[in-house]
């Protein structure tokens, strides 16, 4: 076995160790540790990706001396290292770019615990991405939930604490359904490792035995993860959660945590249920319908918002709708589109949150549109990052958002019964997106009544500029040269399907 095959394990253990050690460090040391850890994980993911590309197959990595079905396992093909690499880059950008706001929003005595939480989120995301065991997924989902609540409530305002309570309630409802689904699945198959589960589920579906429990398990697991990632009727926690947390947390929560659950769901669809069973069980129609509803209603709610953070948060609900619509569309192309949009959203949302916080900072700390007038002229870097993010969310060419929408449309053309509603939903949602993002852009670039301003220079915000440049640059890079990424995703999905 190549040495790089050990890297997923090292990444997870490294993140866990950093989390624990950060508990006793001063916060500056903890911050540096977190940044180094995220960068190291990104590099190691690149090595794992190179390994997977070289061998062209997915590798099972037993955690201990007992391979499946006896003991825990990790498994990686092309998708897993790709996703974990992007996630750790985004995490790095959030931590680097959101530092100033973090210092404003938190107490110095507890800031090391914040970085500890960020490390734990990194560890649990990695475990969710790499795991080959359903129950491990549950354990790390819980770590992710608690740590997410931790980075949310560190800003101890009344609204934030309230938002954390709501976030926890929804999340725990989701976890409850998820664990119940696992119990049903375990009692009819007797396995927890994904390869055996897939085989048993396939056989059970063929024979028709235990049909109702199997359907129930599929529904419970899917529903649980949908609630946790904020699919349409369960998105009420989003605006408060993202709107009142510190921008770094908002970026991590919207860009990474919900995406981790979605990636786990995709992995479960392929590796536990198998696409045939999942798409025959009827769950995909449910996902499709709620996804489409989320696209439209999320955008409508965003349009009515008067607060820039809450608007971006509602737009997240709409984007999650896109992803679920893709999952519901078709097992191959639809999922490739959904994965591409997952990466798009993971790169775009943190940039939007970080730059919006800078824009609001130069506008006297107000988050309302009225006060943001002309703020992009007071901070050019933030304005540029916000513009790239907005254009990507609208789906203009040369950004990743455009490619994602193109892929969704392409997937819809292959599925005749979904063609008309998908195109209609894409059109409506794009119009609405354009409306509220363009309105915001016009507002922040409007020079009326501005007078003479002295813009904030790059020198005084190096960290933010670097993070914003990396996020926006990746966004444009993959928007221009999208084909390699699409090929990678297609190969990865084929590998995942086995």
């Amino acid at each position, binding site marked *: 076995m190549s040495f790089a095959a050990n890297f997923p394990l090292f990444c997870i253990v490294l993140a866990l160790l950093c989390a624990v050690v950060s508990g006793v460090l001063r916060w500056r040391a903890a911050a540096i540790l977190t940044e180094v850890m995220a960068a190291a994980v990104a590099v190691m993911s690149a090595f794992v990706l190179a390994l997977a590309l070289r061998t062209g197959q997915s590798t099972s990595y037993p955690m201990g001396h007992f391979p499946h079905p006896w003991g825990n396992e990790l498994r990686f093909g092309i998708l897993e290292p790709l996703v974990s690499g992007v996630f750790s880059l985004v995490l790095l950008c959030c931590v680097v770019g959101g530092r100033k706001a973090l210092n404003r929003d938190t107490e110095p005595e507890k800031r090391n615990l914040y970085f500890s939480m960020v490390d734990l989120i990194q560890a649990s995301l990695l475990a969710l991405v790499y795991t080959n065991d359903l129950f491990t997924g549950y354990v790390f989902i819980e770590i992710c*939930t608690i740590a997410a609540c931790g980075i949310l409530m560190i800003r101890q305002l009344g609204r934030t*604490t309230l938002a954390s*309570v709501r976030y926890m309630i929804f999340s725990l*409802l989701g976890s*409850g359904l998820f664990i119940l689904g696992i*119990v049903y699945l375990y009692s009819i198959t007797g396995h*927890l490792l994904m390869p055996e589960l897939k085989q048993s589920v396939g056989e059970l579906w063929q024979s028709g035995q235990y049909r109702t429990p199997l359907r129930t398990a599929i529904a419970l697991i899917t529903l649980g993860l949908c609630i946790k990632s904020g699919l349409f009727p369960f998105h009420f926690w989003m605006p408060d959660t993202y709107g009142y947390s510190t921008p770094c947390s908002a970026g991590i929560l919207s860009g990474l945590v919900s995406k981790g659950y979605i990636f786990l769901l995709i992995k479960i669809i392929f590796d536990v249920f198998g696409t045939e069973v999942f798409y025959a069980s009827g769950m995909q129609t449910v996902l499709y319908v709620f996804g489409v509803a989320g696209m439209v209603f999320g955008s409508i709610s965003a349009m009515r918002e008067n607060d820039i953070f809450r608007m971006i948060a509602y737009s997240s609900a709409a984007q999650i709708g896109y992803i679920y619509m893709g999952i519901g569309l078709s097992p191959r192309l639809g999922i490739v589109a959904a994965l591409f949009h997952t990466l798009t959203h993971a790169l775009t949302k943190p940039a939007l949150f970080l730059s919006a916080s800078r824009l609001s900072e130069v506008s006297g700390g107000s988050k309302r549109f009225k006060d943001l007038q002309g703020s992009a002229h007071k901070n050019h870097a933030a304005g540029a990052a916000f513009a790239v993010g907005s254009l990507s969310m609208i789906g203009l060419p040369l950004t990743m958002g455009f490619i994602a929408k193109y892929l969704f449309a392409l997937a819809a053309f292959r599925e005749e019964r979904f063609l008309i509603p998908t195109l209609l939903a894409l059109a409506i949602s794009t119009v609405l997106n354009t409306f509220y993002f363009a309105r915001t852009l016009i507002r922040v670039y409007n020079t009326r009544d501005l007078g003479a301003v002295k813009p904030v220079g790059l020198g005084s915000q190096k960290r933010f500029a670097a993070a914003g440049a990396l996020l926006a640059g990746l966004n444009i890079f993959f928007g221009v040269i999208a084909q390699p990424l699409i090929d990678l995703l297609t190969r990865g999905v084929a590998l995942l399907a086995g």
Partner: protein
Amino acid sequence: MLLALWDHRIQAAAVLLFAVGFVTLLLHRNLLKKIIGLNIMDTAAYLFLTSVGYIAGRKPPIITGGDRDPASYVNPLPAGLVLTGIVVSVSVTALMLALTIRLYRRYHTLDLDQIYQMALGEQEEGK
């Protein structure tokens, strides 16, 4: 039907308990009662899980006395999973209680609706 229900009595009880917890979590405005509902829900899931591992008439899986025949012990795996689950449940409960204390200190009530309205009111004043 009734016979089938009797055959699955523990699982059925677990599911009913789960529903009780679910409704408690959704319907009560009092934060403490919500937390209790949450705990009932978790416990129900663990009861279900334990019941899967049970085999009538067999011993607990402590291998003593040289008897290594798998046919004389119950399934150890669900017990291990439940152990993991319990720790998760304890952690979550502690966190929720801590959040409740913070909210109570600030708003002097446990009613989530009232807290929400007060928080909204604060924001209105802030504008």
